[in-house]
């Protein structure tokens, strides 16, 4: 009912405006009779949507009198209906020159530029339409969405709120206003608008979209874009960070042990440089394969013995996402150097499968094999060994494409190779939870917590009482990322580790704060 009143009201306003234009304002120079008659004949097919027939009459009318403003204007409108935006703009602008007060023409030009996503050109015409009482609200709607497209969410909100006062325009205005509010970080206000929208206008497309969002918290992803001919296959990154590390050497918390061992807790700062890139060697309907390499180097201010260099070569092979599953295999080789001497190497292989449950949830299962080999003491050969793990991870969207919660569990079995490595043989249970999402337009945030319980298989040689080692490790991660320029992202990260062990020598805590900037292509 509201819609009917709104439509009627707008038509009455429109008629009143037309009469006002016809009666009060100067009309254009009168066209010749033949042009006017042809223009009138064109109106019937125009009203019936027979654009080709209408165009023929209007074009003849313009031929009979090139200065017939209405004939030129309606030829432009017909061209627009036929999808010919460029000649439509030309004709409507010409009509406006012939009849500067021609009602509707500024709005038409604004809509034409809006459709072409030329929002800068649309703005002045929409502003003119906004000044006319009969087209004020509809111009506000287009200006609001135009501002939204240009990233001016506050401006969008201003115009869309005004447009929403027109009952006919309310569904679209409220929906796009909700989008602007979401992008402004006002999620609660946005949800309130969507709730109202799905209640009042459930049969509209935007009403259904609002309901879908409110019921499932779902938003559609940008679908995978097929690799077009000439599309970029490579990616590259680089980053530089400055970090503070509260416990570089992982010294135990027990001060007595520190004193007895003649080493203590040492904090330090460091710079960390990294770069790398990837190349998609295979990409087709069946499989994609990406080969990548990454390099990292940390440079400590004082404790140079802990300068760590890393090299990683990685291959990721996966099928394209199917409606309900995706298969993949990832493998990588790491080589590390500590204090510019060989440290250790490891190889990892992970076959995995992801099962999609509907559109907002997915479960991933995997098996991981890892072989680690230390090159030199004091960790060689005690920590050399194999690790087998199985795990699953449950993903769920939290109402937005980039707002994801995932929870994982992993069982792993560490099997050292050397006899004395039995101190470190364990079976582990790892649980972790991660959440990420945008904080409005301020930053992208990631938070995570990980708990890893490692239960030793043999009595630890450091325990005089002879019981097996048991470690419970807690890891905390908070990271904020914010684009600062094209391809450039600044980041702030906190990493915390608390390792609680029944063997005091291995109980420690560690806090790392990192400020960095990265480039991505």
């Amino acid at each position: 009912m509201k819609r009917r009143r709104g439509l009627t009201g707008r038509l009455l306003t429109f008629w009143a405006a037309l009469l006002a234009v016809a009666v009060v304002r100067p009309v254009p120079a009168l066209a010749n009779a033949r042009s006017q008659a042809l223009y009138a004949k064109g109106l019937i097919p125009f009203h019936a949507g027979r654009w080709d027939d209408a165009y023929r009459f209007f074009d003849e009318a313009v031929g009979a009198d090139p200065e017939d403003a209405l004939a030129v204007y309606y030829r432009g409108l017909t061209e627009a209906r036929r999808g010919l935006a460029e000649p439509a703009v030309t004709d409507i602008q010409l009509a406006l020159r012939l009849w500067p007060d021609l009602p509707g023409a500024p709005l038409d030009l604004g809509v034409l530029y809006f459709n072409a996503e030329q929002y800068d050109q649309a703005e002045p015409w929409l502003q003119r339409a906004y000044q006319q009482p009969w087209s004020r609200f509809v111009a506000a709607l287009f200006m609001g969405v135009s501002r939204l497209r240009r990233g001016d969410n506050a401006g969008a909100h201003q115009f869309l709120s005004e447009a929403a006062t027109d009952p006919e325009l309310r569904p679209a205005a409220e929906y796009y206003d909700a989008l602007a509010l979401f992008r402004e970080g006002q999620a609660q206000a946005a949800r309130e608008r969507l709730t109202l929208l799905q209640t009042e206008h459930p049969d509209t497309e935007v009403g259904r979209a609002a309901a879908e969002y409110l019921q499932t918290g779902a938003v559609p992803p940008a679908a995978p874009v097929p690799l077009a001919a000439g599309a970029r296959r490579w990616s590259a990154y680089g980053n530089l960070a400055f970090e503070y590390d509260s416990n570089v050497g992982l010294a135990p918390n027990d001060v007595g042990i520190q004193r007895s061992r003649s080493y203590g807790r040492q904090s330090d700062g460091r710079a960390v440089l990294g770069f790398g890139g990837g190349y998609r060697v295979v990409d087709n309907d069946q499989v994609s394969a990406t080969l990548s390499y990454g390099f990292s180097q940390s440079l400590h201010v004082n404790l140079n013995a802990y300068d760590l260099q890393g090299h990683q070569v990685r291959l990721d092979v996966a099928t394209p996402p199917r409606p309900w599953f995706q298969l993949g295999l990832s493998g990588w080789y790491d080589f590390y150097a500590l204090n510019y001497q060989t440290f250790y190497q490891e190889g990892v292989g992970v076959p995995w499968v992801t099962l999609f449950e509907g559109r907002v949830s997915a479960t991933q299962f995997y098996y991981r094999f890892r072989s680690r080999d230390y090159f030199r003491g004091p960790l060689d050969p005690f920590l050399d060994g194999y690790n087998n793990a199985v795990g699953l991870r449950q993903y769920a969207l939290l109402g937005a494409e980039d707002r994801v919660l995932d929870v994982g569990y992993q069982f792993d079995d560490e099997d050292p190779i050397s006899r004395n490595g039995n101190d470190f043989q364990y079976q582990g249970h790892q649980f972790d939870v991660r959440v990420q999402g945008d904080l409005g337009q301020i930053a992208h945030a990631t938070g995570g917590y990980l708990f890893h319980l490692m239960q030793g298989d043999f009595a630890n040689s450091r325990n005089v009482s002879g019981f097996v080692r048991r470690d419970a490790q807690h890891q905390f991660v908070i990271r904020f990322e914010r684009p600062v320029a094209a391809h450039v992202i600044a980041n702030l990260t906190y990493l915390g580790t608390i390792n609680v062990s029944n063997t005091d020598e291995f109980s420690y805590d560690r806090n790392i704060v990192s400020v960095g900037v990265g480039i991505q292509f």
Partner: protein
Amino acid sequence: MKATTTGFRIVLGVMMGLALTRVPCSAQSDVGTVASVVGALEVQRGRDRTWQPLLIGGSVLRSDRIRTGSDAAAKIILHDDSVLDFGAETQLTVERFAPDADAQRQRSLLKLAQGTLRVLQVDSAGGARGRYEIETPTAVINARAPAFVVQYDVRGEHTDVVGVEGLVEVQGTIGVIEQGVQVGPRQFTRVLKGRLPSPPEDLTPERFAAYQQSLVIVGTGSRETLDADHPLVAARLLRPDDRPGTTGRAGPIEGSYLRPKGPGETLAEQYSRDLGARTQPIPEFRYQNPGEVPPN
């Protein structure tokens, strides 16, 4: 509310049915089509004395009585391609309509009871196509002119005839056998009740425009600007990614929203190689290797 809506629909349906049955089309010949309407346009058809709304695309039949409301205007295309523009509060009867082939032998007769009427009748060469006789209570206009305006003032009981293009012949109703006057472009004559037409006078541009100003209608009078059926106004999503929480990327909507990567390192290991690669206290190992007797 639902019952009210249903009742309204029933009443509307009955009214539409009645309207269809009460406006017979077959008995009278179709002479024209409504092209534009602003405000009220109504017709009195046949023996039915009630006024029915006449909408865009509606047919005009011979003997129809047509009227416009206050603040209204309309445009009707006749089947000989002539155009009749109605001003506000105009009432006209199509007494007789001569098809194009008969135009040389028979005139179309329109009776203007009140208001303003503009007639456009042109052929491809720009000349008059039809031959119209227009009667008002005080004047008879015989015109083959391409364009002219007739205005009858009920209160003043006089007829004004304005030439737009070509020559218009005007006579008084009391003296149709008398010599009339010929009104040329931008001239006018006034015919008072019981009088002969006044000698034609030239009109100032302002007065000439004023006679036609109220006849100008933009389009059909419906909302025809490009927002009218725009998807945005129709409350449709303009882009697939016009969804809450997205950042404005485009892409089709299909499949799962999630695209998890393959499993890898833990979150902490991803963000710090120093944390991921060094998990054991090296000084402690230097102090005592596993399985060895601790140094004294």
